[in-house]
């Protein structure tokens, strides 16, 4: 990979060990993936986790004097204030990890956005053709597919290194030739928002990591929530960083106009029956529930208002902890508008900066819960909690009744 004189100097450590370490990782990636050079990125998202491996790397960068050069947001870990709410039995190590995470964000100059929908609310800042380095697996599909900006499915470390240097190796989805569809997926029904998540689960199981599906049969652009869940679930059951929606997303419209859509595509068709079977299977765990998990990925403002509306004058069963994880941006807005208080009175906890897969929800482990997210189901399972997966309106009914019937 070609490096400019300036980039060589960074690599040799003339600007300190932190920058040198970040550059070293980018050079290694560039060599493995045959990049010709480094290209500037406009923005980055560090998919931090509060886990040690990732944190140790970030701390080494920070101690070496590195700071991010482009606007960089982060994934959630968990809000330390919640210790007072849930009173989980945490060990010192778990508490130390979250404190170290906050500290290192400060040192690196990262925006402590702590949200896994980093594109929500800033969509107008990302333009068609922009190069970015994003590492929350559910977001690259949205950026590549819906906006037509370009990012690889970065690791937490490679996104952070790109943020520090302000550049990324030029390979993968940064190149035109790797963004063409190779599989055609015919959807023979009109999916609702919840169905899009299920469609993601279904296709994730069928596609290979390098496949770029072209989805046909959709009549209108799906909602943000539907696209968020489609991208997220594709990357729980599989690995897909980009797709096209026929007639709807910018790159396929352009390719079509220019007559550049490849003609020999593999074909998959998805029938409503297959998605219905999957839905039935995922909600089959019946009985009393102790919790509801929404917000994996983080819930939007509109979704939270919907929960408030669906509840009406009713309250959540006293046996159920109803948790909605969201960004601090949405949280603050709900507080200001009084919706937060209304929900609190009905038994719903809106939580900011936090991921459902964190130790702070320890007390809920070991019993059945409900969710509208397959991703939440998948991760909570690793923490010894089964969740029944169902659409938002059914989640609310289960919460009121205190059981999944």
């Amino acid at each position, binding site marked *: 990979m070609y490096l400019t004189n300036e980039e060589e100097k960074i690599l040799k450590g003339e600007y300190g060990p932190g920058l040198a370490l970040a550059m070293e990782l980018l050079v290694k*990636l560039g060599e493995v993936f045959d990049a010709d050079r480094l290209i500037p990125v406009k923005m980055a998202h560090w998919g931090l986790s509060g886990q040690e491996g990732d944190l140790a790397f970030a701390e080494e960068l920070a101690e070496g004097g590195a700071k991010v050069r482009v606007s960089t947001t982060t994934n959630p870990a968990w809000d330390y204030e919640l210790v007072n709410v849930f009173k989980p039995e945490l060990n010192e190590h778990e508490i130390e990890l979250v404190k170290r995470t906050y500290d290192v964000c400060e040192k690196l100059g990262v925006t402590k956005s702590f949200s896994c929908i980093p594109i929500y609310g800033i969509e107008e800042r990302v333009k068609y053709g922009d190069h970015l380095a994003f590492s929350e697996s559910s977001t690259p599909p949205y950026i590549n597919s819906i906006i037509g900006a370009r990012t690889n499915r970065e690791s937490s470390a490679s996104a952070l290194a790109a943020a520090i240097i302000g550049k990324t190796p030029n390979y993968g989805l940064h190149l035109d030739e790797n963004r063409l569809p190779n599989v055609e997926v015919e959807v023979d029904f009109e999916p609702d928002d919840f169905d899009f998540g299920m469609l993601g689960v279904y296709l994730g199981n069928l596609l290979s990591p390098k496949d770029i599906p072209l989805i046909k049969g959709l009549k209108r652009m799906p909602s943000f929530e539907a696209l968020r869940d489609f991208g997220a679930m594709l990357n729980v059951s599989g690995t897909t960083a980009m797709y096209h929606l026929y007639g709807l997303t910018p790159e396929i419209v352009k390719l079509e106009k220019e007559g550049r859509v490849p003609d020999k595509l593999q074909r998959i068709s998805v029938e409503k029956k297959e998605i219905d079977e999957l839905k039935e299977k995922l909600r089959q765990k019946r009985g009393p529930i102790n919790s509801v998990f929404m917000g994996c990925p983080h819930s939007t403002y509109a979704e939270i208002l919907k929960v408030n509306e669906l509840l009406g004058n009713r309250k959540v069963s006293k046996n159920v902890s109803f948790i909605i994880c969201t960004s601090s941006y949405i949280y603050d807005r709900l507080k200001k508008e009084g919706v937060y208080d209304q929900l609190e009175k009905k038994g719903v906890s809106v939580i900011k900066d936090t991921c459902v897969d964190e130790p702070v929800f320890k007390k809920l482990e070991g019993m059945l819960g409900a969710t509208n997210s397959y991703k939440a189901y998948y991760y909570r399972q690793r923490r010894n909690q089964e969740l029944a997966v169902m659409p938002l309106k059914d989640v609310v009914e289960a919460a009121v009744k205190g059981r999944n019937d």
Partner: protein
Amino acid sequence: MIEKIRCKVVSERDAEGEIVFSEAPVNFYLADPKTSEIIEENHPLKGVRIKGKAVVMPSGKGSAVVQIDGLYQLYMNDNAPAIVVVKDPDPVIVSAVFISRVPFATSISNEQFEKLKKGGKLRLLYKEKELIYEGP
């Protein structure tokens, strides 16, 4: 029989180990850091200890971060594999071996990958970008 295999490398260290071959992608997050035993249900390597071995697999898997922590925990517990060999690399596995400085070889052909299935020993020469394969 001794054979040389061209490869790409990341960590700047020579290494050698006995081959542990996996048909399926390995997620190091699902290895016990205290024993190096693979604990993932239904995985072909379930129950196998990977400390000091040359772990050969088709690709990595898992989210943008767990693979990194998995390998890091093995490394901190002195239970890391001697070499990780991945046929098709992805940014996550490259970042993981970089952070834990575990010797790594990648971008080998399907044919060479299939050969390693027979087991034996691997030696990685990072400067030469070569794997030296000694079959059983």
